[in-house]
């Protein structure tokens, strides 16, 4: 395969006109039209937020859509920038969104597309066949959201400990309320039995026998 990039041994000098040309050559409108032609009603929810085209696809279609975007001669979305998940507990049946950020490096266009899945059965096809970079990103997504990427070569936790039995980034695990007082967390200044900083041990406080000496008076 001939890689379509300018591979230069020397330096590449960029100019503003070049950038302008790169930005203008592939419009969001055109991508939208191509996708609608190919997939019809199945791709939906097109919107343009802050200049980036965003759309949804059914979760069974994620590989088909990505393959189409990858292989198509004028779309060429061949760089996976980012892959992550978002949890929406209130959307019944489509609680977890897997979000892909793709980048066409030649025309310098980015797009975002999402597939939604049920939190009870979060099965999504893996993108590792297409992008090697998806490997760890999917492991991370599994680690934090429990998305089961079907066909992934090595789907196990990556940043958390292997023994963890829940998916911590889901919304049902809120961060601890910092004002709680029921927890024995004395090293961080809350509660406790050893009583650092209290009168019991005398750290920085007066102990009983010295109390008479306040103000330097000798009793």
């Amino acid at each position, binding site marked *: 395969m001939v890689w379509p990039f300018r591979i*230069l041994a020397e330096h590449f*000098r960029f100019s503003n006109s070049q950038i302008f040309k790169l930005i203008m050559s592939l419009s969001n409108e055109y991508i939208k039209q191509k996708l609608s032609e190919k997939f019809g009603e199945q791709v939906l929810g097109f919107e343009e937020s*802050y200049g*980036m085209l965003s759309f949804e696809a059914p979760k069974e279609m994620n590989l088909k859509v990505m393959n189409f975007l990858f292989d198509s001669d004028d779309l060429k979305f061949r760089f996976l920038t980012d892959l992550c998940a978002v949890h929406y507990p209130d959307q019944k049946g489509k609680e977890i969104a897997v*979000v892909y950020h793709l980048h066409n490096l030649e025309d310098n266009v980015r797009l975002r597309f999402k597939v939604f899945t049920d939190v009870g059965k979060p099965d999504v096809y893996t993108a590792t066949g297409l*992008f090697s970079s998806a490997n760890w990103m999917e492991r991370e997504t599994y680690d934090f959201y429990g998305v089961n990427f079907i066909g992934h070569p090595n789907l196990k936790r990556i940043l958390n400990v292997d023994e963890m039995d829940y998916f911590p980034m889901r919304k049902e695990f809120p961060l601890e309320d910092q004002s709680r007082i029921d927890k024995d967390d004395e090293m961080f200044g809350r509660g406790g039995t050893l009583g650092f900083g209290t009168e019991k041990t005398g750290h920085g406080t007066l102990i009983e026998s010295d109390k008479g000496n306040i103000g330097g008076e000798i009793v």
Partner: protein
Amino acid sequence: MSEQHIKLPEGSIEKTTTTLNLGPTHPATHGVMQNILELDGERIVSTEQTIGYIHRAFEKIAERRPLYQITPLTDRLNYCSSPINNMGWHLTCEKLLGVKTPKRVDYLRIIIMELARISDHLICNSIVGVDSGAYTGFLYVMQYRELIYEIYEEICGSRLTTNIGRIGGFERNFNDIAFQKIEKFLKEYPDVQREFEKLFTRNRIFMERTIGAGPISAERALNYGFTGPNLRAAGVDFDVRTQNPYSSYEDFDFKVPVGTTGDCYDRFLVRNEEIWQSLSLIEQAYKKVQDFKGADAEIYHADVPEYYLPDKKDVYTKMEALIWHFKIIMGEIDMPKGEVYNSVEGANGELGFYLVSDGSRTPYRLHFRRPCFIYYQAYEELTKGAMLSDAIIVMSSLNLIAGEMDG
């Protein structure tokens, strides 16, 4: 094998390879990460990386913090170039809020970001030297990283985890000492960089150690999600600064260096050349900043009363300023609803922030695209079949920062 000399205990499996545990706290990993190498003699058969030793759940913590309190979290991603992370985060917030920053702020930001890039590349390149047995370069350039840290100190008061700038600009104008120090750096550093390059670039031992170590083709590098100097060393001229210019990078003239083979030597050269380009960028930005005269020279932030703390003088004398101060500090500002992805060219590659806001006071979801995390998975492919000594040098030339990897 003709004869078994050593009697293995019954039930044990005869193994022809050696397992070597490199890390998590090995001095050569320069960070907390583990590599389990399977060696056949000195050749690497396979590698398994374990990461996550300093995972601090920043994405989760960020879900309960107002925007300005997330900046200190970004410091701790790539802690060799915190200012770039800070600026990236501010730019993301500004994109979400629709804030337009004045030109002077953009130029001041570029000075800071390029200084950070130099200090990051310095560390990486000099560490490549250390790992190939040349300590001198490392000790020599450390003095000049110190100078960069002093500039940060003048601007924001801290050195490593900088928390520099605010949404909309800087917390205060650069003082004269900061400008003097930048001038001093611009004057003194080129000689140092030249000497540093003289120590390494045509050094026979260094070349033998790095040429052909850990090469990657452009195609594989892209497939592995490489960005930044590592991708450019493989021959792809992708740089966020030129492709999606932010913070007025389009006003500047600079080159994007590229390599050909993507091996350690090319990565080293690309980083060195980027240091020169950064120096030229700082010089240009410094000149442009000096062109602002009179009242223009006092501009150091955009007008964003909802997110930018008012002057202390006003807080003590005016009711409105006091209210805004209180609301900002307590994080009582609702942000607009929307999804935004913004990226900057970090020292290691494309540092992206994917921010989902549901219109409340804290992000609904924040995801960091951490370049280190993404390209470290190529390590196995880079080192397969190489010598054990290459494993170390490939690791340092990829510039793996555990803080960024683990997030």
